[in-house]
């Protein structure tokens, strides 16, 4: 039964991607991309990757789609006809595809428990992680404790993306007299429903942040969901009100604070005599030390991702009053 679901979902995914090639309306292409992300999140759940499905649904179908729509509002909706023919790209794609399919015939068959990937490292983590780290969610224990340095690099990459976007675009406070505050002034239903939904979304973001140890979740998903709540507020009530609630300066401080929190956990454990990011030294009992370490670094990751996603959205949304659009 699970194989049938797998087959059908993957076929739907292929059809969606195929349709994106032939469309010229960019709005429809971005919507199809959102559907593609949601379908891949479903397939990830079917393949037992619940954490990855969570992240793909919130990041791919949430933030990516919102940012692309924000870009479309500035660059126009239709793609123009291209002058060069498409025979050469088609030929390159077919040759590469044939070579790759010939390569996949050598791969180990899908799902067998004695594939090479399931030997050596993975059984060691699966057996030792309840004893050494003590968390039920093994993905969190590998992400935050065994491979904590990679996650530190990932947080710094997200922070660098914020620096890149802010230095390219910058966040400008709108002049109140020139532009309307929000195009959604007359949508009373949307105002009321947004006021009901936004506290629930923030609560859910906090739940996901602190329950990443026991189920799917963690800092990244929580940061993105929290940013989505504030993005909804900015869309419905207008950007000046959103600036009054969470100003861009506060977001810049929060983004740097998250990365510094992560680094300071590592430095603190070094000052106690261990390696960088060695959580065993954070408390007297190593398991309790692991719990503290994972809690604090996930908090740092969540704060940074939230601040970065929201400031990127502010940067995109405050470009809309530029005059050379169309």
């Amino acid at each position, binding site marked *: 039964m699970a194989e049938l679901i797998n087959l059908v979902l993957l076929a739907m995914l292929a059809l969606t991607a195929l349709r994106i090639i032939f469309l010229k309306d960019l709005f429809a292409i971005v919507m199809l991309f959102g559907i593609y992300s949601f379908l891949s999140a479903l397939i990830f759940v079917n393949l037992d990757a619940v954490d990855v499905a969570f992240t793909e649904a919130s990041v791919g179908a949430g933030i990516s789609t919102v940012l692309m729509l924000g870009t479309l509002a500035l660059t126009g909706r239709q793609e123009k006809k291209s002058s060069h023919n498409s025979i050469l790209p088609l030929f390159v794609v077919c040759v590469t595809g044939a070579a790759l399919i010939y390569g996949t015939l050598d791969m180990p068959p899908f799902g067998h428990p004695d594939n090479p990937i399931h030997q050596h490292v993975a059984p060691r983590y699966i057996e030792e992680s309840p004893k050494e780290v003590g968390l039920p969610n093994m993905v969190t224990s590998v992400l935050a404790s065994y491979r904590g340095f990679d996650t530190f690099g990932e947080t710094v990459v997200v922070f660098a993306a914020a620096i890149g976007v802010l230095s390219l675009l910058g966040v400008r406070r709108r002049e109140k007299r020139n532009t309307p505050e929000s195009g959604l002034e*007359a*949508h009373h*239903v*949307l105002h009321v*429903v947004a006021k*009901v*939904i936004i506290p*629930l979304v923030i609560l859910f973001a906090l739940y996901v942040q602190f329950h990443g140890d026991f189920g799917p979740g963690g800092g990244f998903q929580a940061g993105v969901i929290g940013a989505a709540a504030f993005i909804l507020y900015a869309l419905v009530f207008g950007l000046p009100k959103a600036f009054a609630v969470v100003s861009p300066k506060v977001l810049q401080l929060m983004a740097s604070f998250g990365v510094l929190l992560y680094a300071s956990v590592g430095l603190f454990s070094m000052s106690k005599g261990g390696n960088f990011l060695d959580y065993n030294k954070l408390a007297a009992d190593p398991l309790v030390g692991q719990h503290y370490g994972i809690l604090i670094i996930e908090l740092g990751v969540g704060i940074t991702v939230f601040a970065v996603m929201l400031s990127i959205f502010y940067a995109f949304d405050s470009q809309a009053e530029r005059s050379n659009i169309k």
Partner: protein
Amino acid sequence: MFVLDIISSILLIAGVFFGLSGAVGLFKFPDFFTRVHAASITDSIAAILIIGGLLLQTSFDLNTAKLLFILAFLMITSPTASHALAKSARHGGLLTLAEVKEEEKEGKQQEQSN
């Protein structure tokens, strides 16, 4: 428990039927506003029936509460989205099919009288 299984499968099949009818309506209906109505059927009645069918499959524990939360959240957000879509189209000046046909008739009458 056999009765519960039968009822839950009836609910699930009815929910699938409404979802499919919403999808078919999205293609077949001639006008934007009728298409929004067809799409919002999947938001409301299909979601209620499918989640109701799933509720009868689990025992009365945390999963039931989670499914009820999902249902409540879907009921609040999806009809709002359809409403916002239709309202934005209306404010943007989109006319329904009946109004388009009326305008064409008035245009023809003006041509005839000129």
